[in-house]
């Protein structure tokens, strides 16, 4: 119950920040950027598989959200709304990339990155392996797995972010998990 009050307080505080931004006080937007940059950056990284694009898309997500603040609905959560903007940015980026680079080329880049000496540290290696496996998931499954297991959203929150029914999202998550299990097994990755 106490936690719920905290969440409500945060939501009303965020709404107040948004209102101030709309009244011309841009500086206060940095509070929201600081609060959610980790979430947006990591979602973008897990969706895109590389830090440079993740950085660009995360920045663009915040800027697009700022421009569209007047469309933000008071009864929704800013984080959920922002996350849906980030996911859409990533989708657009992946589509534009598909037009210029073949899937094989992307896979090659990922593999060669894993093999570089800089990535020798074990945890980093696993992180890259997971990313490579995530990259191989179909976009829809990847979105579902990232939101569910990287960001820890529940299906209702995922429904708000992706605009897809929670039943469909459950199926996508289940299938994504199955594929992930198979891919990690193929790479001989085991926990611990």
């Amino acid at each position, binding site marked *: 119950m106490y936690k719920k009050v905290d969440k409500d307080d945060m939501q009303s505080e965020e709404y107040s920040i948004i209102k101030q931004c709309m009244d011309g006080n841009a500086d206060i937007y940095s509070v929201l950027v600081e609060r959610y*940059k980790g979430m947006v950056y990591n979602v973008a*990284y897990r969706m895109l598989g590389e*830090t440079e694009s993740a950085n660009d898309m995360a920045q663009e997500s915040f*800027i697009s959200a*700022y421009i569209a603040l007047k469309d933000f609905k008071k009864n929704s959560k800013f984080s959920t709304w922002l996350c849906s903007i980030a996911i859409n940015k990533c989708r657009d980026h992946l589509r534009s990339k598909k037009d210029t680079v073949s899937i094989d080329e992307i896979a090659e880049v990922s593999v060669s990155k894993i093999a570089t000496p800089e990535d020798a540290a074990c945890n980093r290696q*696993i992180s890259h392996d997971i990313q490579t496996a995530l990259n191989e998931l179909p976009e829809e499954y990847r979105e579902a797995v990232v939101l569910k297991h*990287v960001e820890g959203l529940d299906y209702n929150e995922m429904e708000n972010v992706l605009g897809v029914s929670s039943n469909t999202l459950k199926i996508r998550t*289940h299938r994504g*998990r199955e594929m992930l299990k198979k891919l990690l*097994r193929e790479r001989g990755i085991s926990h611990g």
Partner: protein
Amino acid sequence: MDKNMELIHKLLDGEVSEEEKKEILDRIDSDPVLKMELDALSMAVHIVEKSERLSVPPSFTSKVMGKLPVRKSSYREKVWDFFFKDRVLRWNMVTAAATVCLVIIVFTGVFQFQKKHSLISHTNISEGSTVTVKFNIYVPDAKEVAIAGDFNKWKVDGKNMMKKQDNGIWTIEIPLKPGAYNYMFVMDGKVWLSDPNAESYQDDGFGYKNSVLKVTKL
């Protein structure tokens, strides 16, 4: 996906009841293949959930803040949006019917207005070698209106008095031979009026403009 796998995924989603949890755990205990599946899936989920979270580049916030566009003040934004924002007009049968009615009313009004102010001054009706011309003028407040012209030697008498219609239009029919005629209307015996719908006008030398009518054979 079979029933067992469905239950395993429900378990991983944390959406099983105590009863279902007991059921799946019992099945797993008696089925090594199922146990292996659950372990492999749990491991995949665990690795993803515990994977290293990247730290955001230190300049991230300042870069975002530096790229924010200048926002118009709320009031200016509202005015701007009112005039320039794309909008979708939604309609239903009632608004469509109301719009049609409004258009009909406006068109009827314009038509009536034009009808009153651009009276057909004369209608030619063939009658042997003469042509009967019907003169009209809209002066609803007049007590009497007469017509004076070349055809009646500019006399304002009983023969040339016009008849008032219910709609405020005064009319008179006069048989005329083909030719050009100057004329004017005389309201209440003293006010001389040009025909606002005459074909042409001619100065009368006294500061007025005579209306000009040209009668031709039909």
